[in-house]
């Protein structure tokens, strides 16, 4: 059970305060569940560092502080391409509380925002670490030992139609994902260059669908390309069975939902 709660003015101090007996808390929508159930470390570490709330636009994208909430993103006039994703996370109350940083560490089946960031090629700034920001895929693989995330740099799609996101849930408008899928398909001369497609709830963390990306690269986004992409949707993926859906079901429908997303992106 929790013995103490510490709030540090800077992320660097918070980082130094971490230890095996501590857990970092931002919005609390995931950590407090464990606190309530009595299954956490004994110290909660928080930070009031203003960098966590920063949103900084730059030439190629935006750097979003790890403490920025889903609601803030959904309402931000310069982040329209991320608004549909933010609006799909939880219900209104959760969106007022849940943060970008927290979503990166959300366990299965959560983490829909991280799925979109993965497809967009986001990079992560970790507190107290100098050097280039790290690719999100690397950070997701090492979630247990990353440290505290300070901010996420998100490249902006050149054309709004290059990016699409779809969340599949049994209950709408608010329901946990059976799976989610995000696609960033930049075009050059009508052909896809550098496709990135990511699935959520199809593995232990958000994962790229590399077979789909290989099928899409160099192609126009037309019916036959979409059909071939759907066919390889789950190649290389090992979806789980859980209370929401079986592995079999996820395998059956992943390609169907990918196809629907890509067709929607064609229609614009």
């Amino acid at each position, binding site marked *: 059970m929790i013995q103490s709660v510490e709030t540090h003015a800077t992320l660097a101090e918070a980082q130094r305060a971490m230890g095996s007996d501590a857990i970092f808390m931002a919005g609390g929508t995931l950590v407090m569940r464990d606190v309530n*159930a*009595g299954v956490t470390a004994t110290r909660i570490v928080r930070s009031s560092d203003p960098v966590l709330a920063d949103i900084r636009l730059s030439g190629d994208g935006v750097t979003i502080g790890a403490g920025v909430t889903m609601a803030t993103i959904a309402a931000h006039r310069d982040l329209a391409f991320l608004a549909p994703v933010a609006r799909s996370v939880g219900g209104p109350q959760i969106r007022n509380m849940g943060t970008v940083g927290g979503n990166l560490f959300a366990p299965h089946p959560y983490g829909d925002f991280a799925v979109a960031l993965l497809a967009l090629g986001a990079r992560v700034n970790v507190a107290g670490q100098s050097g280039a920001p790290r690719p999100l895929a690397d950070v997701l693989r090492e979630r247990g030992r990353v440290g505290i995330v300070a901010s996420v740099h998100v490249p902006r799609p050149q054309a709004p139609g290059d990016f699409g996101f779809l969340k599949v849930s049994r209950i709408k408008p608010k329901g946990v994902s059976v799976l989610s899928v995000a696609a960033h398909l930049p075009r050059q001369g009508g052909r896809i260059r550098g496709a990135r497609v990511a699935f959520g709830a199809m593995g232990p963390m958000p994962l790229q669908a590399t077979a789909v990306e290989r099928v899409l690269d160099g192609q126009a986004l037309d019916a036959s390309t979409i059909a071939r992409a759907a066919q390889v949707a789950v190649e290389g993926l090992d979806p789980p069975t859980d209370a929401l859906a079986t592995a079999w079901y996820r395998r059956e429908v992943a390609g169907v939902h990918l196809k629907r997303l890509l067709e929607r992106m064609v229609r614009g």
Partner: protein
Amino acid sequence: MTMEFRKEFFADERDDNLNEIGKPTRRQDILGHVTGRSPYFDDHLFDGLLHIRCVRSPHHHARIRRIDIAEAQNMPGVVRVLVGRDVPRNLNTLLSLLDFGIDDEPLLAETKVAYKGEPVAAVIAETEAQARAAVARVRVDWDVRPHVLDVEEAIKPGAPVVCEVYPANKFIYHGKYDHQKLRYGDVEAAFARADHIVEGRYQMSPIEQAPIETCGAIAAPETNDRYVCYTSTQALFFSLGTAAKLLTMPSNRLHFIGGTVGGGFGGKVDSLHEPLAILGAMLTGRPCKFAWDREEEMQVGAPRGAERWYIKDGVMRDGRIVARKFTGYFDSGAYTRLSSYAIIKGVGHLPGPYTIPNVYADVYCVYTNRTPATAMRGFGITGVDFAIEAHMDKVADTVGMNPIDLRILNAYRDGDMKAHRREAKNTALIECCQVVAEKAGIGLQASSRAASSLRDGGGERARLPAHTAVDQKGTVTGIDTGGYARKGGASGRPAQPPSMPGYTMPAAASSTRPTAPSPARPAAAASSQSTAPPPPPADPANTGDRPRQGAMRFSSISGLRRR
């Protein structure tokens, strides 16, 4: 929301001078709901409140070798850790209050657990967090046993014995049968004559009521050596009686306050929170809260029990159903609770709202290593109704009839004899079908459109069958179910109920049971909407000029009436 009244039906039976029926009215408690003042059990503040959390089995089925509470007892904030031997009387079955069934369920398991989540110890601590931490430190040495989770697997020879009171995993009815029987006419003879035989298998999983308010109770010492208990129960008097029995305490030392329930749907009728909360208050001298968290509500909370039904109909080519045979299995889970009664209620409902001259049912109350089941909306009825209506569609398909026409053809009418040997009154299935067809734009045969519940019933259809085939199948010997069940109800004098300390029965009922005249209401005293077993009903034979005497017997439970 607008309601449509179809007052043309049964118009001469209706009195439209009513002040409340048929008119919208404001709930008497809604002001409390919208101001946040409705007092649910947890909305009572006590200084020094202690919190109770249970240690629960992670296994479906296991023997308990040892429970080690030493470390837990010494943890911060822990006041006391309870185990089974701390419970004054650690064995009960809910319906013992109505003298139906054998005590089979401990409040805290001592020798074995039979379902995942069954409690074996209770930690009482200053805060909920401290109680949780201490629960994690109770060490139980389990001897995990094979388990069974399917009703038909559970009754096969060699299946794991779930509840040792019933070694064949079946509740014993009336002291002699391992199932509840309904026999009316001769289905086998009718099958031989039928043009079609239609068979079906229907089942449903357990269904969790999932109210937003979880179950719980807060108990505290009160004046005059009493205990006050605020509880979420839907069945205040049942809960009070159960607590009095388990704690061997006269019921007049218990002051139960309830009535504000944050959703029950039947899931709060067999509550076992109060005895533990009161026991905590007794042993610590302080107010104690015992409430489930959401995970317990979903896993440990009793669901509507799973059911499986096999239905076999004998049908003539014109669509008349001349015989219906049921084999039903109720999944009671690890203990009896209310499932034994659910079957009595369900069997009284068969074969559905249809006049079928030959009806046969064998319905089993089966024990499995699942969470013990309880009531939920239309307790005992809804599952078999789904099976019956799905089967009617199958019959319609077989004979090539519109499913609504089929239902109207076979519907009971006023005056018809029903399979439980009561005359049908105030039937209205036909009119419901006609209005549904009209609303859905489904065309019906002329005869269906012209049919009426008030016509064509009775006469031949009012007669009991000339011959009813009976059998002794499923007879069980050597089991003493005690109490009323032992006597089977056929002889004059009802048996004495098992004695409950602190509770003395009124003088025994008259030794001559009144013969029931043709009753004016259905046999099952509970309406099909009831989510809880009703209190002992007024004797239908008690028509006012004959005063009630002595103990009320819930004679409808066993369905035995002298004719």
